[in-house]
């Protein structure tokens, strides 16, 4: 397995020191740098303090199971989590852009997966219609900015 990091766009082998604590252990009071959240955990209303955690791993048991998209977005927008959010499990090239838009920053790939394809897929779209957890301005905001430019000219 290898690790793709969005910040430097680099792939590194997964190091053995790179360990993750299961959620139950963390809940029973152990401190952790990195924590794996269960994919059926509802983050909408839970009162958990992730401020001492550097990384949260979210799991895609199969590409069809899109719960981790909501989890990631809630971590960014509701829990104001600023650490690394990592995608594990069935991580597909063709979902990569959605993951990035929901707030994921690092990704576990299989050795056969081509990270260049993943990174290329980020350039497949220039514009997005909706607000998400990334910095992209939705199209309606771009339209307003464009109107202002036209108005000013």
């Amino acid at each position, binding site marked *: 397995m290898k690790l793709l990091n969005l910040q430097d766009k680099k792939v590194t082998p997964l190091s053995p020191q790179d360990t993750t604590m299961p959620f139950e252990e963390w809940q029973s009071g152990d401190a952790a740098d990195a924590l794996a959240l269960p994919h059926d955990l509802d983050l909408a209303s839970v009162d958990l303090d992730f401020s001492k955690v550097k990384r949260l791993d979210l799991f895609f048991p199969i590409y069809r199971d899109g719960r981790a*998209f909501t989890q990631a977005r809630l971590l960014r927008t509701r829990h104001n989590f600023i650490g690394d959010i990592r995608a594990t499990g069935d991580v597909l090239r063709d979902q990569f852009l959605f993951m990035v838009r*929901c707030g994921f920053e690092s990704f576990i790939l299989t050795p056969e997966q081509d990270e260049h394809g993943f990174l290329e897929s980020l350039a*497949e*779209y220039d*514009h997005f*219609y909706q607000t*998400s957890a990334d910095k992209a301005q939705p199209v*309606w905001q771009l339209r307003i900015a464009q109107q202002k430019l036209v108005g000013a000219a």
Partner: protein
Amino acid sequence: MYRYDEFDHKIVRDRVDQFRGQVKRRLAGDITEDAFKPLRLMNGVYLQLHAYMLRVAIPYGTLSSKQLRMLAHIARTYDKGYGHITTRQNIQYNWPALVDIPEVLDQLADVEMHAIQTSGNCIRNVTSDQYAGATEDELEDPRVWCEIIRQWSTFHPEFSFLPRKFKIAVSASKKDRAAVKIHDIGLYLKENENGDVGFEVLVGGGMGRTPYIGQTVRDFLPKEHLLSYLEAILRVYNTLGRRDNSYKARIKILVNAEGIEKIQEMVEAEWAKIKSENLDVPQTEIDRIQAYFTPPAFEDLPATSEALTKARGASENFDRWVTHNVNPHKQDGYAIAVISLKDHGTAPGDVTDAQMELIADLGEKYSFDEIRTTHDQNIVLPHLKQDDLFEVWQQLHAAGLGQANSGLISDIIACPGLDYCNLANTRSIPLAERLQRRFQDPERQGLIGELKIKISGCINACGHHHIGHIGILGVDKKGEEFYQITLGGSEDKDAAIGDIVGRGLSTDEVVDAIERLVDYYLTQKQGEERFLDTYKRLGAEPFKEALYETA
């Protein structure tokens, strides 16, 4: 109607390029059919019994003549010369080659069309009233909101891998022509006591093996909060919807397991938190989209047309067509006409390339360049001058499109069934044809009046049999085709799931049995009663007796 700006164009074009790359990877063998499946599904490409099938989105059923001509061109060039209008107002092609599909999508993009999210477990094409912007009983044009939803739902990063597909419909009329209550989310535009316009939001309707009528989750939502509210519902569903069993994965199952109060509580709590997260489009954007739906430049005309009255007197066939297929328009001197795609010797909803060309010409010349597809698989010309109706009808009639049966017993909805679909138990289309032949006589059809027959070839209910006044469901009994009848379903504001009346009928029995049912209704009918009204008044028992000849 809405026109793309540079952003819309770019997004759709990017999708074509992306899909071209995906097809290339598949054809080169870089990805397996298994891995390709979710990619093609996100773009409306299914693998059917015989070939790939491509479903093209017709957002809320609105087309220009230029777009319809393109659909005709695709039918001619890449398919066998016809297309099929679906119950989501989309068009389906049953025979394209996979290698051609990127090219088809490219040509569609030229006329501001696409196949985005016409399949897959995502938010599907939003549907609406086919008379939107034309009907006299409407509060405002619901398509403004449909377009806002279309844009918001397109490639939504959080909601593209939901537990199951997700369907939204919007209506703004007293009469519900969009079957709003059988949608995952149904939206009725309404006015509150202060005269403000907003939405009644329903959730959890749906067909399939466990049909449910949608329930109100919010009685009045101020319009400007639509997207944040939808986002709250979708988030609750994406988190809590079942993923262990695809038959139990629709939001209707969640709503009915938790109860509507609990769902309401969760949705409202979520909405309270995200309301101010910059999710809703601002008024300037609503105004921008609204401007595309300003009514066309209608002429000042008298309310009734002398030419029309004269033509009706002169031609019995035309008169009948006006009676059944022409509806009142909000503008004096205009009318809405339904072009029936039923009972013309082909499958319900099928339309040939030549017919599409003709309808495009008529739309351009007589209907301010606007054409609509309907969820009951017909086509509508929404803005015709009453003075022009006879001329329009003559041309339709000559092309085999003059059937005067809108809303009548031969205006049948049928799913593709065993002829195309690999999940089917029974054929649907041949049964529709047999019923249409049995009730061919226009006189008799007129006498029977409004009667909606809907046929599904299996329990997945794509033919919406649950909400047919008469519903027909194909079942398999030891390798033999049987048909189960439901009675009393409805898709209007009084939406109801039909009652299952008894044992399945064999292919040989079913047409006679339905005729007995209809004849019984005719003997009992009081005044202007429709089949459904008589059924409600008398209850299932006597109809059952007629159906099974037990009396």
